[in-house]
């Protein structure tokens, strides 16, 4: 199997393979630095290059000379749900400042639509939720832009960084809409919209660079102000998908009692010596390996040789390694199918790729092997690798507090297993942890900050925690943290799962917290223990008086668990609680609950 002929031809005589060979060992940061370096050389004119090597100062001076005399004011407007958009926005501001711009980050949550007409350069960073909805923080501005009240913005230059998850159909929908609406209002695109998948960091950096370069702030300018020769100091995550921490598994416990229909694992990982820090509410991403069985299925369906070498991000690895460690196999997403269509021209598949609803129902419950079996195609190992998407790490809400467990991080992982389309399917990461990782083994992890799903700054504030199933995980960390800190605020946990005797996750710990007062209220909803099903939202309604009183007294309400089932029912229950207890109308109650979200006192960590 040859890969040499698959190299992309680039414009003006460059060959992608050659470039890759030249830069194959370079880190992302080196590549990024080089992009600025070459720009500097270009900007300095043809004669300047030889002098560059010994002294960088000449270059930077030259670059500075080319910059416009007055730099535009930049506003980076972010609409964030988990904090990733905020993170990217802050990085943009930082990079802009380093290039001498006046730049401010603004939360859409606190931004008035009419301020837009005063902006010169607007950089929008926004994520997309669920089925293409904007994050709560962005809702109002998003609506405003589409309304007749929105001002014309002929002077405005803008660009959009859209965050999303490619496995969703409405990938980056909100970012697209911001882009369209700003364009419609007469604004000028500064740089094309960039759409990022789950791992957004690299794309975000490129977008920032592109935008700033268009605005005339060359990367090399950094050196004018800085003493370091390091590239643009975009803040660096110490551990990441590319550089995960290898952490030893100290403990692994199946939490469900015998006879349970659930299979939930408690994992304790060592952070000793790593310097890795997290806060309760953060998530830990785990880099899984695909199961041998699934890799086998894929190899069987494609009739490819497991040892065939393939190129992956400038690296040559055997196909088996790529399939096991690097590529997503256990879920099937739209982008994969769209790429696959190129190798499989059957009209039926093409039709499917174009039809949103049929596509969604086809993707549901299917994995890469299903696609390869359903629509067999002759494709090379490299083509297969290029068709599949990178294997994303899976994020789990951290279930511990570093104060309670120094040098440890705990996870609560529900093993996902189901039968679909004739085969037993497994959650890629949950079953990796459930079946293929034992005490003493190591797993690759990194922290995903969850900006907003955090304990209140004011430790005297009360908190209501609503968790179903593994959704109880962050609350274990919350309560541990507040217990360790001796926080004055009261803690109320409402937990739900199918059965009391087998599925009361961390039961003895909650009982102990309750006895000690570190939990002042503890309510449970075991859906299958009685004829009528009872869920956590039923308990919210049952204790409506207390819920409302707590909220009125400034309590924070946290929801963690299943996005489809939990988030919506809890929301609805809260609206009912407010109606019931305050006598408000439905509209008023909904506004009240929306207000809680805007104040970030009603926080969700749903998946």
């Amino acid at each position, binding site marked *: 199997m040859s890969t040499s002929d698959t190299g992309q031809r680039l414009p003006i005589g460059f060959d992608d393979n050659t470039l890759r060979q030249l830069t194959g060992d370079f880190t992302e940061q080196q590549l990024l630095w080089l992009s600025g370096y070459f720009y500097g050389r270009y900007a300095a004119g043809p004669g300047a290059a030889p002098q560059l090597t010994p002294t960088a100062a000449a270059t930077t001076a030259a670059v500075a000379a080319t910059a416009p005399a007055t730099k535009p004011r930049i506003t980076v407007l972010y609409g964030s749900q988990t904090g990733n958009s905020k993170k990217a926005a802050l990085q943009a501001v930082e990079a802009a400042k380093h290039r001498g711009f006046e730049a401010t980050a603004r939360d859409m949550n606190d931004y008035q639509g009419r301020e837009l007409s005063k902006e010169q350069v607007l950089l929008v960073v926004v994520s997309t939720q669920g089925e293409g909805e904007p994050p709560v923080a962005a809702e109002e501005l998003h609506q405003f832009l589409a309304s007749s009240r929105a001002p014309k913005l002929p002077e405005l230059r803008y660009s959009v960084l859209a965050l999303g998850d490619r496995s969703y159909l409405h990938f980056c929908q909100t970012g697209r809409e911001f882009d369209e609406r700003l364009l419609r209002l007469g604004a000028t695109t500064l740089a094309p919209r960039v759409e990022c998948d789950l791992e957004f960091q690299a794309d975000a950096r490129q977008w920032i660079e592109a935008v700033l370069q268009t605005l005339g702030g060359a990367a090399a300018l950094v050196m004018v102000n800085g003493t370091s020769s390091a590239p643009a100091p975009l803040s660096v995550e110490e551990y990441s998908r590319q550089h995960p921490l290898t952490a030893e598994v100290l403990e692994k416990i199946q939490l469900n009692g015998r006879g349970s229909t659930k299979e939930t694992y*408690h994992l304790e990982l060592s952070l000793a010596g790593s310097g890795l820090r997290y806060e309760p509410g953060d998530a830990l991403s785990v880099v899984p390996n695909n199961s041998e069985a699934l890799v086998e299925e894929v190899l069987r369906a494609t009739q490819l040789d497991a040892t065939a070498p393939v190129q992956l991000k400038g690296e040559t690895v055997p196909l088996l390694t790529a399939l096991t460690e690097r590529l997503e196999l256990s879920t099937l997403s739209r982008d994969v199918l769209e790429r696959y269509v190129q190798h499989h021209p059957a009209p039926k598949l093409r039709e499917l790729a174009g039809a949103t609803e049929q596509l969604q129902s086809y993707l549901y419950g299917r994995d890469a092997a299903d696609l390869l079996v359903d629509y067999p195609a002759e494709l090379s190992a490299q083509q297969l690798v290029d068709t599949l998407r990178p294997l994303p790490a899976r994020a789990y809400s951290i279930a511990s507090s570093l104060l309670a467990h120094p040098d440890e991080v705990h996870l609560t992982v529900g093993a996902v297993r189901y039968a679909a389309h004739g085969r037993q399917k497994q959650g890629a990461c949950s079953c990796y942890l459930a079946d293929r990782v034992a005490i003493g083994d190591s797993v690759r992890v990194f922290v995903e900050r969850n900006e907003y799903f955090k304990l209140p700054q004011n430790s005297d504030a009360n908190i209501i925690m609503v968790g179903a199933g593994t959704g109880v995980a962050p609350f274990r960390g919350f309560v541990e943290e507040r217990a360790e800190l001796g926080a004055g605020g009261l803690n109320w946990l409402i937990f739900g799962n199918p059965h009391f*005797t087998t599925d*009361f996750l961390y*039961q003895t710990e909650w009982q102990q917290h309750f006895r000690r007062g570190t939990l002042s209220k503890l309510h449970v909803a075991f859906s299958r*223990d009685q004829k009528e099903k009872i869920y956590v939202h039923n308990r919210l309604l049952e204790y409506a008086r207390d819920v409302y009183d707590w909220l009125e007294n400034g309590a924070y309400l946290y929801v963690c668990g299943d996005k489809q089932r939990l988030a919506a029912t809890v929301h609805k229950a809260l609206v009912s609680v407010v109606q019931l207890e305050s006598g408000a109308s439905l509209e008023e109650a909904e506004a009240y609950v929306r207000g809680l979200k805007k104040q970030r006192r009603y926080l969700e960590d749903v998946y």
Partner: protein
Amino acid sequence: MTDKSQLSEVEHVKDASNYLRGTLRESVQNPITGALYPDDTHLIKFHGSYQQTDRDLESERKRQKLEPLYSFMIRVRVPGGVASPEQWQRMDDLANEYANGTLKLTTRQTFQLHGVLKRDLQQTIQGFNAVLMDSIAGCGDVNRNVMCGANPHESQLHAEVYEVSRQISAHLTPQTTAYWELWLNGEQHLSTEPAEDAEPIYGKTYLPRKFKIALAVPPYNDTDIFANDIGLIAIEENGRLVGFNVAIGGGMGMTFGMPDTYPRLADLIGFVPTAQVVDVCEKIVTIQRDWGNRQNRKFSRLKYTIDRVGLDTFVAELQQRLGYALEPTRAYRFETSSDNFGWMQGPDGKLHLGLFVEGGRVKDTDAVQLKTALREVAGFHTGEFRLTGNQNLIIANIEPAHRPQIEQVLARYGVLGPTIERTALRLGALACVALNTCSLAFAEAERYLPQLLDRLDTVIRAHGLADAGIQIRMTGCPNGCARPYLGEIGLVGKAVGRYNLYLGASHSGERLNKLYREMLDEDGIIRELTPLLAAYAQDRLPAERFGDFVIRQGYVQPTTHGQNFHAA
């Protein structure tokens, strides 16, 4: 009067409980645990239930950060062990719906359900109530289920004795309305303004300890009356009941390492005509109420009260409270404390079928579907079910026309076949529940005895003793639920897999056994018993029982009184 500060913990709980209410309602409703509050675990017993855990899963669940798997055993009061087919079916339903799918027939002729979760307690008890059964005083410091000889040969006499057992049971049932209030939503207690509860016989702290009464009709001592606080021996004249010989102060329990605790057989104190027997029982109960030890529950049973004050003093007090003297004991003779099996016919022509129920456990296995079979029989049977004191069952007062139908059902579910092949040793065996649910157990009993018997049967058959009817009884602790100290072979668990071996009780339940060997494992038990059984097969006198043989041969000394049980 007693210094209150010296009273045992349970006495304080009873005192503060407002006639057995305590905080049971809150306990039962507390959704975050399957357990009751500690004080309420004492009170729930009076309502017929013990809080237990699945000890097999203890360490596993602890690691899983789950509390122990708490569940409740509920004991239904069945005076005299007589249940209607409707009641049988209900118990069968409740076992499936709320318990572990089995029924335990106890050594006190009651039904026990095991594995009932706290949240199902109320519905289970309501289920009893719907067929006029209750669990009041199933356990606790009160008079427990009144036993009555189950052998139905003398139908008329049995009916009269059974009637007396019902009267005693009713008379000594606690009067508190707490049971109705807690479990039955106040049903049966809808009379105007609820009057202050009162317990005319017990008082608000009830008895110092449990209290047991059993009635027997000679020559059958299938209720082991001498193991009871009050044993009543029916005396008949011309086939009619005239009264009872009264024996007092029996009890099985003891504690390892405490020689001051001992099993004791009841002492005969005289005869009472039928009309006064309820009165006599009441007065004995009240003396124990007033004189019994309330500081240390290990010495609270009537047997210790009697040995402390002396039998004469006790009887004198009794006669004073009665206002009359007991008559001299009448002649009687017990032959056996075991059950009869197979078909029997009463003088009225009705049939009775004695069925062996191994370990008293009514369940379905792959080989034998006893539970299903009995459920089907209950569907057409017009007589009753009699639970025996030896954990067996008599389908009683069968219409002769129903016999083929019953035989068919029992054959279809494999119930009759194996009975024929069983040795008399196995048919007479008793075992308490022990592990995994009893919190007191040190060792296995019900779950293990059948396996041990498989090995012992080989020895028994090898020596031609398959029909010898040696009584073997095993318990998981020394408290004596399966009356091990009245077993011709008694095995009392001391640790997992280790048993003390006792020998020399009389076959008729009239002499306690004596410690022979300690801490035997299974091989040790077989090794010790094999030569004894061989000797018995060879050297026994005609009709000599194994319990008598080991004494005549000097293997053990006879125990003549509880107080010399521990003597060598």
